[in-house]
């Protein structure tokens, strides 16, 4: 499997599909502890990404991710816009103008994405935010890439599985950042919508490479 611009476009297309399919689920998660716009915002944002990709036809994975970053920051509207926008922007910078991505660079890009989210949102692990999906994902990706036999698919699978587990693990947590933090103890018992959509995004990356 080669991670080139075609993979990147397939990934982003699968992201758009996943957001459309899970729109109602994400809205319900967000209604429980937030302002119930996450599903709608993510769906709209990734539909706009698809339009931009068709127009601009980027030539490298990094260019596709940069276009995604700018579009999400302009179209999502809620906090997820600048957070995912910064994640895709930092990942794009880490990828540079490489035509194909090797396991090490892939892990670097995922770490850069996580660092971008942390820098923008100022959340830490355990705050019940998307960081709780991205930090285990970035660490699992680094571990998989460090293994000499690591493949890009192996790195993506490790990241996606860790993100999924991280998202599930937000359920008992009490939110300390974002809109849900206003609820205090009442935020416990619900999965964080941002962690849930993060897991969907990383799962789509596997789907595009499989």
């Amino acid at each position, binding site marked *: 499997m080669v991670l080139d611009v075609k993979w990147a476009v397939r990934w982003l297309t699968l992201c758009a599909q996943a957001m459309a399919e899970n729109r109602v689920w994400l809205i319900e998660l967000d209604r429980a502890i937030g302002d119930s*716009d996450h599903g709608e*915002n993510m769906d709209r944002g990734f539909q706009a990404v698809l339009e931009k990709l068709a127009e601009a036809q980027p030539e490298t994975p990094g260019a596709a991710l940069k276009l995604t970053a*700018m579009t999400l*920051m*302009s*179209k*999502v*509207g*809620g*906090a997820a*816009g*600048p*957070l995912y*926008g*910064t994640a895709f*922007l930092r990942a794009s910078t880490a990828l540079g103008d490489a035509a194909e991505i090797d396991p090490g660079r892939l892990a670097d890009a995922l770490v850069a994405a996580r660092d971008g989210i942390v820098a*923008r*949102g100022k959340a830490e692990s355990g705050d019940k935010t998307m960081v709780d999906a991205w930090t285990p994902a970035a660490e699992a990706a680094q571990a998989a890439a460090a293994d000499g036999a690591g493949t890009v698919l192996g790195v993506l699978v490790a990241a996606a599985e860790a993100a999924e587990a991280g998202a599930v693990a937000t359920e008992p947590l009490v939110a300390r950042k*974002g*809109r849900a933090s206003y609820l205090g103890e009442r935020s416990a018992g619900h999965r964080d919508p941002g962690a849930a959509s993060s897991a969907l995004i990383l799962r789509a990356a596997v789907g595009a490479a499989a």
Partner: protein
Amino acid sequence: MTVRLVVVSHSEKIADGAVELAAQMAPDVVILAAGGTADGRIGTSLEKVMSALDKAAGGDGVVVLTDLGSAVMTAESALELVEEPAGVLLADAPLVEGLVAAAVAAQGGADVKAVKRAAEAVYGLGPEVAAASRVLAESTVAEGSVTGSGPDFTGDFELVNEAGMHARPAAKIAGGLASLNAEVTVNGVDGASMTSLMTLAAAKGSLLHIEAWGPDAERALNYVGGLVQAGFGEP
């Protein structure tokens, strides 16, 4: 040329309204609104913020004011992407009060750092203002060079707060005097008029000469003097 301002809000109406309000007090300052999303919903849009920053470029710098969480994040993202981020500062201040203070400072020719400080100075009007209000209520004589004779009371007070006579102090003085039966002038302008007080553009260290007439003249003088000496509760 003055410092220009950009307002980032989740709501287009809030951004437009805040700009309208501030423009009244600062007619020569370029103030741009970047509120709501491109399709008119509640939210913030990088596109709108970048476009406002673009239009604001080319002056003596730009100060950005924001409302809630993602407005701050979108503004920070935009700052990462603008070509000359050095001249663009993000103010950590309440949107409306901060914008008015920033606009008045910009109108008075303050530089970009001073405009940001003016916006942020509206935070934390604490115990000092409460103390000045007690002076008003109890009608005790404040310390300072107060001289009173007959119906006329006059006093001179030095401005000690860093930002000087900006919007918030002007509002405090004018607001308090409005409830008193007294005619008051500050350096010759009407003390009950916030906009007149701001046109004084009095900086830190300036002397304010207060004259008061009428039944509440002494209380009015003590009220203004107390506020000025306390620096309006600002650094």
